């Protein structure tokens, strides 16, 4: 049988690449869905592309968008975080509460510490107590959320320091600072996810935890770190929102958790982990942001809005999935 080594079986694996252009087209199904949404938006609301409106879309999307960057890491790592809404609110009240005594940077630092603590708690419960992320973060979300109310004595926190509103309301070169923050955090996230050892390890953990563990990846540490990262993103989101509104309140978290998970999933990142990309989250964010903006601008009745949004979101995701399945 030693002869056989001279002849190499041209394996089918090599022959499998076939239609690169078509494949690329199909790969980006969610992008085409977004283009369709944009065209629809431009028809029903022609002002949608005006700079002021774009600024609105982006600055309104900034807080939840930043949270979604962290959430992308958590979800690619096979996790789930329902507590970000509460951490978001906690960030907002801590920032507003401490802006006067500690100054802007001091308050931001305090938020950072608080968020790291929240993230570490989430990470430990998920990785060390092996509680599944759904219950774990539903539970901690309840704890952090309750604590945000207790911390703020259920009262709005309004600092006197005028600087407080800087991040949320000032512009650089005519564009709100929060938009720069959003873009920078997205870029860093995209780069880390696609190009760094850290990002690659997260994919491996989400794709096959056991394989990752056996190949020596510090699974618990890295998986835990995604919760810390998301918590920090949530804190930044809270800072931006409270700074924009000039007040920090414990009910600011609202539907942030579900929204950010939805944004990530709409982009096409798998809920099961191991697959996804940051650009997908960006597209998901823009789809949701555009829909909300257009519906609000047209003052569509909320109930019809709910129906239409549901249908459009499912349609967009179905299109993406259909395209990806075509690709085999």
């Amino acid at each position, binding site marked *: *049988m030693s002869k056989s080594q001279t002849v190499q079986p041209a394996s089918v*694996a090599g*022959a499998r690449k076939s239609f690169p252009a078509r494949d690329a087209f199909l790969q980006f199904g969610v992008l085409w869905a977004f283009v369709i949404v944009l065209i629809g938006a431009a028809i029903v609301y022609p002002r949608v592309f005006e700079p002021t409106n774009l600024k609105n879309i982006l600055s309104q999307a900034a807080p939840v968008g930043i949270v979604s960057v962290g959430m992308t890491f958590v979800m690619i790592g096979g996790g789930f975080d329902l507590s970000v809404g509460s951490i978001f609110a906690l960030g907002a009240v801590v920032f507003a509460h401490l802006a006067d005594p500690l100054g802007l940077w001091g308050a931001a630092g305090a938020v950072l510490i608080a968020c790291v603590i929240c993230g570490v708690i989430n990470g430990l419960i998920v990785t060390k107590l092996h509680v599944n992320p759904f219950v774990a973060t539903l539970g901690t979300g309840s704890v952090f959320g309750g604590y945000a109310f207790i911390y703020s004595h259920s009262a709005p926190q309004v600092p006197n320091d005028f600087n407080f509103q800087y991040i949320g309301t000032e512009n650089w070169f005519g564009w709100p600072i929060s938009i720069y923050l959003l873009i920078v955090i997205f870029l860093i996230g995209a780069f880390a996810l696609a190009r*760094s*050892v*850290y990002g690659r390890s997260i*994919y491996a953990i989400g794709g096959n935890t056991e394989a990752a563990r056996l190949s020596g990846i510090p699974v618990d540490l890295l998986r835990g770190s995604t919760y810390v990262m998301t918590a920090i993103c949530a804190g930044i989101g809270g800072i931006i929102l409270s700074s924009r509104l000039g007040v920090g309140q414990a009910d600011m978290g609202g539907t942030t958790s579900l929204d950010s998970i939805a944004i990530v999933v709409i982009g096409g990142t798998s809920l099961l982990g191991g697959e996804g990309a940051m650009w997908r989250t960006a597209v998901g964010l823009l789809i949701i942001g555009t829909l909300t903006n257009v519906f609000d601008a047209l003052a569509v009745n909320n109930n019809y809005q709910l129906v239409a949004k549901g249908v459009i979101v499912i349609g967009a995701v179905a299109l993406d999935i259909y395209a990806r399945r075509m690709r085999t």
Partner: protein
Amino acid sequence: MQALATQSTDDTGLALRAVGVEKRYSGTYALKGVDVEAKTGTIHALVGENGAGKSTFLGIIAGRVVPTNGSVEIFGKPHVFGAPRQARRLGIATIYQELTIVPALSAQANVFLGQPLSQAGLLDERGMRRRFEELAAQMSVTIRPDAVAGRLSVADQQMLEIMRGVQSGARLILFDEPTTSLAPPEREALFRLMRKLRAEGATMMFVSHNLEEVLDISDVVTVFRDGQLSGSAPRADWTKPSLIRAMVGHDVVEYRRVERKAPARGAAPLLSAKAVSVPGAIEAVDLSVQPGEILGIGGLVGSGRTSLLRALAGLEPRSTGELAVNGEGVAWPLTPRAALRAGIVLVPEDRKAQGLVLGMSAMDNIAIARFSEVSRFGVISGRRVAESARRVAREFGFAENRIGATVRNLSGGNQQKVLLGKARFREPRILLVDEPTRGIDVGAKDEIMATLRRLADDGLGIIVVSSDLEEVVAASDRIIVMSEGRKVAEIDQSAAPAKVQDILNAAFKVMTHE
């Protein structure tokens, strides 16, 4: 292989020293007081029946399994248990029996899993690609580095896993049944590589049920039996029969070809498929199976054998072809249910991904195949599940008293037996088996092939795909050889038995023509 074995080993010259290693799973002993020593720079084989504890032993060294008792030294240093990361630091790399591929990642990323080449935390994709191509050339495989690993054939995934182990530069490499789905060329490439590593001073532990292989490559052979050491000696002291005796306690005749009368010609074939195509995998393959006939399919890795079976079983929605069962035309099956309705049952090659529900008991896995048999008015009878499961378990040599065990906790070979039992329980007319003896020990292997023969004698049509070509030769009445997705030869064994080389020749001829 970068810094391979440059470190001097300690005075004993031992890469591994295990003393009194014991592993208990809720009261059951998987290992009982095992002592093993492996000298640096040797290939040390572990053999034993299914469930003898080989994987458990390797798992302990690899840091996956925490032993209940005992101590292990790696290059003279005490081992830290249950920490694969730590094991890697000690210079241990492992190729696991159950594949540990990350399906969504590329082939290249899988090879460098956990140890990517990087600079300042950033991936060095170009460097990794270069290294990947080097390794692939060394091992005679052509896998595109950016192919999605989950879509590769099991054999290719196996190769990735081996590449991962090899590229890690480890000084002690553990191979748990690395050759199960490899064809001769890949096997040869692997053994070449292992010899090269040995020459460079690496130590290897090697588990296989292919005793020729074991005797061919290893320096020392250790036999496990029921979780205990049954014997350990240099290769020269072993012969195949003595190994088998140490393993199972009695003699086994391997690959005996049972002479049998050729099935009646002229009768309508039980199954006849024409122009079977799967875009990108196989093209216009014709085949037929008579009742009572075992049809073997030979070929090399990636020749399209699995795709052919999958297409017949209704698992390739984009496949096309014409199908006739018992001479009657049947709509081409595009779903497994359609194939099952036609009486076609597939035993898939990847038991973990496609075959078994790992979290369920063995008997429930078997019952899934035909609920109607074990239920009345939609209500399952636990008694009938157990009875049926016992019956088929017996046929494939699976210990009857373990039918209640969760499949995840069974050894690889025993999982395979459950998988076969499950297909059997469906009472198919046509049985397609893809790598039926994957991970099966010598004793049970023959038994499985004998069971298949018996099923054929009862009138079933059986198609066997196996990378163990001797097995194909021994089992089948007729052999189809595939290459690059086409049927290139058909060998009728009713006159004279074929040789493995005939199959290889047929498989390679086409390529050399091109």
